[in-house]
């Protein structure tokens, strides 16, 4: 269970959002500039809220009043960025292994095999990120985040930087991820079609406020795209 109840001022813009979600895939849905990325940056710990609480499965990650702020590296929350952000000096294998090494987790060949199969990246292992296509990069980023064994996976418009044909290429992997990886996800997008395919719960964000919450049907209420 993810609980978010925060306010944050960012210049002229402000976020005042409160929601709790138990869904396998929580869709943060809203137009660009609605504050979706700032919200998940707060969940990841990259941005500190001005006020409020963030907790996951009863564990407090942020509690401004009590001066609690768990730093990103201790949250065990995976993050797939829109721009992949693979480490350019490491090959795919080392990128995938990075989270395991940093968390000093035991080698888990079975999980690695499962993730590489799931994402179809077994053939890319020795390549550098510079030699990958946009879609391949995004799949490796997904694998890298999964292999750090997060308890929650944040996906910030992972298809946003891809063209239409690439999107169609990645979407099935995301569906498989949802059904097979058993990691709850927060999926950020402004694309209603993506949301319908992936999300099990929707948090609609408008101007930094939660404007609607519920099942996928709330998407029909008006689409910001």
């Amino acid at each position, binding site marked *: 269970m993810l609980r978010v109840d925060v306010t944050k001022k960012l210049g002229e813009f402000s976020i005042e959002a409160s929601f709790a979600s138990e869904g396998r895939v929580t869709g943060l849905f809203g137009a660009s500039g609605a504050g979706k990325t700032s919200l998940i940056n707060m969940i990841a710990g990259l941005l500190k809220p001005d006020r409020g609480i963030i907790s996951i499965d009863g564990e407090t990650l942020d509690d401004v009043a009590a001066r609690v702020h768990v730093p990103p590296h201790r949250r065990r929350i995976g993050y797939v960025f829109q721009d992949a*952000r693979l480490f350019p000096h490491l090959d795919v294998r080392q990128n995938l292994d990075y*989270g395991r090494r940093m968390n000093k987790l035991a080698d888990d060949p079975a999980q690695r095999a499962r993730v590489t199969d799931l994402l179809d990246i077994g053939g890319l292992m020795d390549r550098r990120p510079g030699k990958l296509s946009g879609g391949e990069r995004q799949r490796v980023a997904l694998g890298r985040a999964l292999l750090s064994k997060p308890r929650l996976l944040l996906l910030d418009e992972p298809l946003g930087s891809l063209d239409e044909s690439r999107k169609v290429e990645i979407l099935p992997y995301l569906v498989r991820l949802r059904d097979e990886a058993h990691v709850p996800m927060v999926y950020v997008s402004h694309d209603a079609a993506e949301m319908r395919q992936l999300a099990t719960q929707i948090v609609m964000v408008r101007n930094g406020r939660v404007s609607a919450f519920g099942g996928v049907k709330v998407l029909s209420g008006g689409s910001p795209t």
Partner: protein
Amino acid sequence: MFDISPTEWTAILLSLRVAIIATLVATPFGIGLAWLLARRDFWGKSILDALIHLPLVLPPVVTGYLLLLTFGRRGLVGAWLADHLGIVFAFRWTGAALACGVMSFPLLVRPIRLSIEAIDRRLEQAAGTLGAAPWQVFATVTLPLALPGVLAGMVLGFAKAIGEFGATITFVSNIPGETQTISSAIYSLIQTPDGDTAAARLVVTSIVIAMGALIASEWFARRATKRLHGN
């Protein structure tokens, strides 16, 4: 003409030792300060920045004299170091290394700082979300990506250190075998009536070392860039 005499060899080897030690000892500090200047905001940042660059704009003789006042046997720091740790800089080759390290420090720091500033901070954020603590982010992402800048800084610093003259001679004088580097040996030779050929040999030597350093730095930088971005 290329019959290098033992005294000249002593000066050449001493110069190399002084410049190498100065560069190796200064590099960790240089990386630390470059990172602070590139990545942190704190009170007095511009003062620290100015302080690092001071040896670049001060007359070298002033820097040397200040070192003498601070690190000489009766200097504030020098007396303490001599009494408590047995480290003496005054009129020793270690003092020459200190002078060279201080004089070359701004040239060492600058490329490192620039290369750290050029690193995409979002990669460091990504490393954090994968469980890397700040020091791990530094060791596994920041430092490897800044490596070309670190090497460039080290070579520049080394080249500056090997040619340093004013601060060194002011601080530790010009003692053959102890503090007489190539530069101070050339200075002595051209003041001696028959020193011209010997001076010429040392001049050629210093040109060779400088050229070698520049070529090595180019080679390192190209290799590092290839390692980072190519396959």
